[in-house]
């Protein structure tokens, strides 16, 4: 599911023309337009064998072969976002940060088997933002239970 709101004026004295695209990865999005606030609640699934959320703007994919196996994840976006985008991603397991990325290319990563075993049955959460051409903001989050 994707919600694109545009334009949004975020400041009273200095209007900022901005496009805010919510990269859905979310079953429910309540976009509060006042002050650019928004709430996105990701549907929770199971990391194994795979978990996927998103839409035309992009997808978050997670894969885990089975219990205690390593987990791989990646974010794959529409071609327009592949360049000129700054990504900030945080990965949490059971609420504890385990990985954080700030980079200019589509993020992907892994959770090694030792950590997957440690957090088996707990929730893996991947969330963050992507800023494209400075004023086009995507937010995303996804949650799945580690096998």
């Amino acid at each position: 599911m994707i919600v694109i709101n545009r334009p949004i004026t975020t400041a009273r004295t200095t209007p900022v023309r901005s496009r805010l695209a919510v990269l859905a990865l979310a079953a429910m999005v309540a976009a509060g337009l006042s002050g650019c606030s928004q709430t996105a609640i990701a549907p929770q699934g199971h990391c194994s064998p795979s978990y996927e959320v998103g839409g035309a703007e992009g997808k978050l994919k997670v894969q885990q072969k089975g219990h205690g196996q390593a987990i791989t994840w990646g974010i794959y976006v529409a071609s327009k976002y592949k360049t000129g985008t700054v990504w900030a991603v945080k990965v949490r397991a059971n609420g504890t940060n385990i990985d954080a990325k700030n980079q200019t290319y589509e993020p992907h990563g892994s959770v090694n088997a030792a950590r997957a075993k440690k957090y088996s049955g707990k929730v893996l959460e991947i969330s963050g933002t992507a800023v494209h051409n400075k004023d086009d903001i995507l937010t995303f989050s996804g949650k799945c239970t580690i096998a």
Partner: protein
Amino acid sequence: MSRITNLSTVLPEVAADFERVIRASARPRLALLDQDHDPEVLEQIPDAAEWIDGDTGSQVLLLIGGNVTSMIAQWSNTGELAVECASALQTYVMDERNAPWPVLSGGAGVAEPNLREGTAQWTWNGGAVPFGHLSSVLP
């Protein structure tokens, strides 16, 4: 007390193997976090408390450029920590290059960090070199 140290100080062999492929501005560092965060650590890792392992009360982090990755290995377990760091750095380098690395001479494939008989090594099908000696098998 939490602290941040250059990788080359803690694991010089690992740092040496990556010296030519990680740009200087991305300078790999290791952070040891505990419940006591000094201002210098908080300046670089503002959300330090959110990285602490609830079971151990501490956490080792690898910092590369703007990326932070938590380590399973404990600070004192040098061999396992070296392999885990090398693996994370290898992933970082491959991401940055969008290509496999390190590709070995003679079509031997791509080496992987492993702990064999207590020694941290780069291994591949049919061979191995200890950390710190990777350049000897690169083209």
